[in-house]
């Protein structure tokens, strides 16, 4: 499954980078290079081979772990991309963590107090959460918390291993901005799942048996309502990765999103190919793990 996904993604990425109006040889030698020099370089780079052959060569190198050489820096793409991916994953994990801490309780409260004020407040929060794109919330957050109140640094990235407190303070705003939309989405999903579960016969049976509300909620309802959350969170990772691109650009965090933007603007083909492939692989792996986790937690589902 993952293999097929990555194969399709590699085809799409390769196709797009082939159609891109960028000539790798011209980019490396400059506009004024002689036609002979260009031809010679194309030959050594294998750019004169048929497209399918170029694709096969590229794919073979990728499988062996060689993602190519950046046209912009002349350095291997792989190490730089994976180093950047590490910073992005830190950002992503913290965002998912914050989201889970806030979204699940919010969703549960809204479902239990359905139609009451608490429910309305939660749905108000969730509508506000999806109202603005990340670059707007990020800009407003910088204006409020960095420029006016001076609580947090506006942009930049400090490795946690260099200075832990300083590093964390640089991550607070980006993490909050990324989690807002996720919190809005996941809390709504938890609410609607739990509302559905609370109306099932087995919950009514448990209540009629004389179990307390809290006990029914903990032992029966939450177990079933929270399972689909795993799938929803895994699917939201695609949205999360998109948000990471924007947020890294705004807060000047040298992660994979920023690398990709730079690569796209410079038409650095090997870097674009590697970046998109790594992002798609991250998404597929997360969803694969989610599927396995789901089957493991819910014994009714058997994967063949």
């Amino acid at each position, binding site marked *: 499954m993952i293999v097929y996904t990555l*194969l*399709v993604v590699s085809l799409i990425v390769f196709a797009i980078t082939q159609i891109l109006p960028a000539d790798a040889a011209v980019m490396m030698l400059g506009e004024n290079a002689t036609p002979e020099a260009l031809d010679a370089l194309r030959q050594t780079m294998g750019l004169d081979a048929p497209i399918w052959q170029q694709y096969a060569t590229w794919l073979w190198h990728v499988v062996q772990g060689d993602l190519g050489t950046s046209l912009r820096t002349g350095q291997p793409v792989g190490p730089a991309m994976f180093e950047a991916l590490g910073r992005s994953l830190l950002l992503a994990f913290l965002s998912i963590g914050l989201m889970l801490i806030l979204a699940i309780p919010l969703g549960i409260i809204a479902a239990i107090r359905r139609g009451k004020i608490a429910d309305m407040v939660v749905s108000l929060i969730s509508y*506000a959460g999806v*109202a603005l*794109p990340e*670059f707007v919330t990020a800009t407003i957050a910088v204006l409020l918390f960095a420029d006016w109140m001076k609580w947090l640094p506006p942009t930049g990235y400090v490795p946690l291993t260099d200075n832990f407190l300083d590093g964390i303070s640089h991550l607070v705003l980006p993490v909050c901005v990324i989690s807002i939309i996720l919190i809005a989405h996941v809390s709504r999903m938890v609410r609607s799942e739990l509302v559905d579960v609370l109306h099932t016969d087995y919950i009514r049976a448990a209540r009629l048996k004389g179990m307390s509300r809290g006990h029914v909620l903990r032992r029966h309802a939450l177990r079933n309502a929270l399972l689909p959350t795993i799938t929803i969170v895994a699917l939201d990772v695609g949205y999360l990765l998109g948000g990471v691109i*924007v947020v890294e650009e705004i807060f000047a965090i040298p992660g994979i999103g920023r690398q990709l933007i730079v690569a796209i603007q410079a038409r650095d083909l090997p870097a674009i190919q590697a970046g998109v492939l790594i992002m798609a692989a991250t998404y*597929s792996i997360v*969803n694969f793990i989610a599927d396995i986790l789901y089957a493991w937690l819910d014994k009714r589902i058997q994967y063949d």
Partner: protein
Amino acid sequence: MTEFMKRLLKTPQGAIGTFLVVLVLAIVVFGPMVAPYDPEKLSPLARYKGPSMMYWLGTDQYGRDIFSRLLIGARATVVMAVLATIAGTLIGALIGTASAFLGGRADELIMRTIDAVMSIPSLLFALLVVNLLGSSTVNALVAVAIAFAPGMARITRSVALSVRKQDYVNAAIARGESSAYIIRREMLPNVIAPIIVEMTIRVSFAVMLFATLSFLGLGAQPPAAEWGLMVSEARRYMHLSAGILIWPSVAIAIVAVGFNLLGDGLRDALNPRT
């Protein structure tokens, strides 16, 4: 129809959503006619003005009237988002229905491929497509439409498959109705409703995606009054006047919340059972 409208307006989401969307559509249609100033006229002497009787929402870094720019930019922002969503839905619906209709191994193959395409974040996909086609508003539209198609295909397919299994469809088959009748009278009305709901909600995502593309310099180009571009241009001057940042953000939020609420309202109104 009137009964449907009554159901829609009865819920708070439906009522507020309808109000906001009608307001936005009114601005799209009449905005340019009632705008008090030329949106691109520079007034070096009237820069960074706060709200006043003369400039309702103040002026921006070039002394342009923000209110007029918002009224005129509504077309660039909202119409594009709606068109892109419709285009993406049509492509997706076609693929999804075809996949559900073909079934078997073809269905499996199409869906696995759709899954693969969806593993590329839609923003990144749009970025690649715009970069491929060159940055302009029309290309951004194509990019967003393509980025939306896989998700819509999935939804259409699952809805079509579940409708196909319903008793009323089997009943119609048992009654000996023709395939055309079943598809037109029994299946289509039940397939379209969830797709319209999804489409309405997706318009708000399209608005945000467009704004983000403009922010990254790959959508509308200055001096266009597109709202996302207005926000991203305002970022450099926000220390001088917060208004140039706040008002376009509020405008984007109104559109996004409006379409989201309307989508939820429609879902409730179209599903009388729940």
